[in-house]
């Protein structure tokens, strides 16, 4: 090969390489990349420490749609982020702004670096000693240096292992929220409230989630946390896909919460009637409707009839029978409810 030919081949090869590299560097990220990148930088405002791209929350999904639309409209990343922060403040960014209290988060690595460099410089200036023991410094020896390096490596390895283990543990904890869990294989009694919320959020369109939703709502209800229970019962009652028994329980609970939590007598009676439409003989619905009529509407006679209907059922527990009997007697005597 002649020298000229070799130069030409070399020139062509270099040109192709430079053009290819320039194209790689200069090529604008495509639309989906930009949307994902922006979604990963914005904290879901209704979640805890989660980016909107990772969150199944309806609000996060609406924010992703907004970002997608703004990208399609030609808005720059800065414009989109500025729009979001002008509404939510810089706190909505997962990378906090380098100002105010969060400035320390950005300075921390620099401070750590400065600390590390000062230690190294000290060590180099006083080869035999350790920081803070200058007066006792002794000439260095290869064995001491090796020991120091080995110690540093050991500490690094241990710290690394701890970080990896912690990360792995966190991933395990967050696993069920990813939506990949087989809902039928999840035993709600073994799952924390937070995890159940995550699973429900990730599977909101799946009708089989109603069972877990009811289990979680019941936990809240029994703990007296009506505010947390309420949206779950409401979702079941409005889903139209819940099994009769599940919908009935949700309606009974909603009815009682409307009365006990908000003093809404008419709403409570309406919800309890809906529950009785599903199961006309439900002792719980009959008894609670009786209580609402007696305590909230001052209609003891109608309440008494409902209490009697409960007592007419054969399979009542003794404790329930005693309680209802006492209430029936008091209502029949025209007493106010206790």
């Amino acid at each position: 090969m002649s020298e000229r030919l070799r130069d030409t081949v070399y020139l062509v090869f270099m040109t192709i390489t430079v053009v290819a590299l320039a194209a790689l560097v200069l090529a604008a990220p495509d639309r989906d990349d930009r949307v994902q990148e922006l979604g990963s930088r914005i904290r879901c405002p209704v979640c805890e420490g989660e980016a909107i791209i990772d969150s199944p929350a309806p609000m996060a999904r609406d924010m992703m749609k907004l970002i997608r639309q703004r990208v399609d409209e030609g808005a720059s990343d800065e414009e989109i982020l500025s729009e979001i922060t002008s509404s939510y403040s810089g706190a909505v960014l997962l990378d906090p702004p380098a100002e105010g209290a969060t400035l320390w988060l950005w300075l921390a690595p620099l401070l750590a670096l400065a600390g590390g460099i000062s230690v190294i410089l000290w060590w180099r200036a006083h080869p035999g000693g350790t920081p803070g023991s200058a007066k006792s410094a002794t000439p260095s020896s290869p064995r001491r240096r090796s020991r120091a390096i080995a110690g540093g490596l050991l500490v690094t390895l241990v710290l690394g292992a701890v970080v990896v283990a912690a990360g792995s543990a966190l991933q395990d904890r967050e696993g069920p929220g990813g939506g990949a869990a087989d809902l039928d294989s999840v035993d709600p009694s073994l799952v924390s409230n937070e995890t159940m919320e995550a699973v429900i959020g990730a599977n909101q369109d799946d009708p089989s989630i109603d069972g877990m939703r009811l289990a979680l709502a019941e936990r809240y209800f029994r703990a007296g946390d009506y505010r947390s229970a309420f949206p779950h019962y409401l979702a079941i009652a409005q889903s139209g896909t819940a099994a009769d028994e599940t919908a009935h329980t949700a309606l009974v609970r909603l009815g009682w919460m409307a009365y006990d939590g908000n003093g809404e007598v008419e709403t409570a009676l309406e919800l309890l009637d809906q529950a009785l439409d599903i199961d006309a003989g439900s002792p719980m619905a009959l008894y609670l409707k009786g209580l609402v009529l007696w305590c909230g509407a001052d209609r003891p006679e109608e309440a008494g009839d409902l209490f009697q209907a409960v007592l007419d059922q054969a399979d009542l527990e003794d404790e329930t029978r005693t309680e209802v009997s006492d209430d029936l007697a008091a209502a029949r005597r025209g007493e106010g409810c206790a």
Partner: protein
Amino acid sequence: MSGRWLRWLGAGVAVATVVFAVVLASRFGADPSLVPSPLIGEPAPEFALPTLDGTSTVSLSGLEGDIVVVNFFASWCLQCRAEHDDLVATAEAFSEQGVSFVQIAYQESPAQTLAYLDEAGISPAMRHLADPGSRTAIAYGVFGIPETFFIDADGVVVGKLVGESNALILGATLDSILGGDQPGETVTGDTMQRPSP
């Protein structure tokens, strides 16, 4: 590099580390949603939203010259239900003083919100709007509901209530705005988030 200089550097790093730890520790337990709204003192984000029954559109600019109270609510929110009667009463009490009340449904279908309002009671003093895609909720930086924004006659956000309000708080806030003050942001209680639709 002198040992003295290094000692000072080490001491500086130690002090900075302690300050850093204190700053971090002070944020533990703080609710990240309780950040002051950057909208206070700023022009209110414009909206033009359909009414819940879909028969008309209401825009903020169309209410220009009024003090506008914008309340984000939903049927699944207990605090919203609890404050509903007081909102209605306040809207009716201030309707002759150039105050318009707008309720914007948050994360809920218009049909479900309308069903709730049928039960809770509708007042002609209030406008009820849908918010497709939560665009207006996002523009107002809503973290949870109820959240209530107060916009003065010049279209500037001058107040915000986070959590359940009552007639006393609503009335006092409006009196303050009518008197030319900027009441700012007040947290009156918890807000709710819908875990799923």
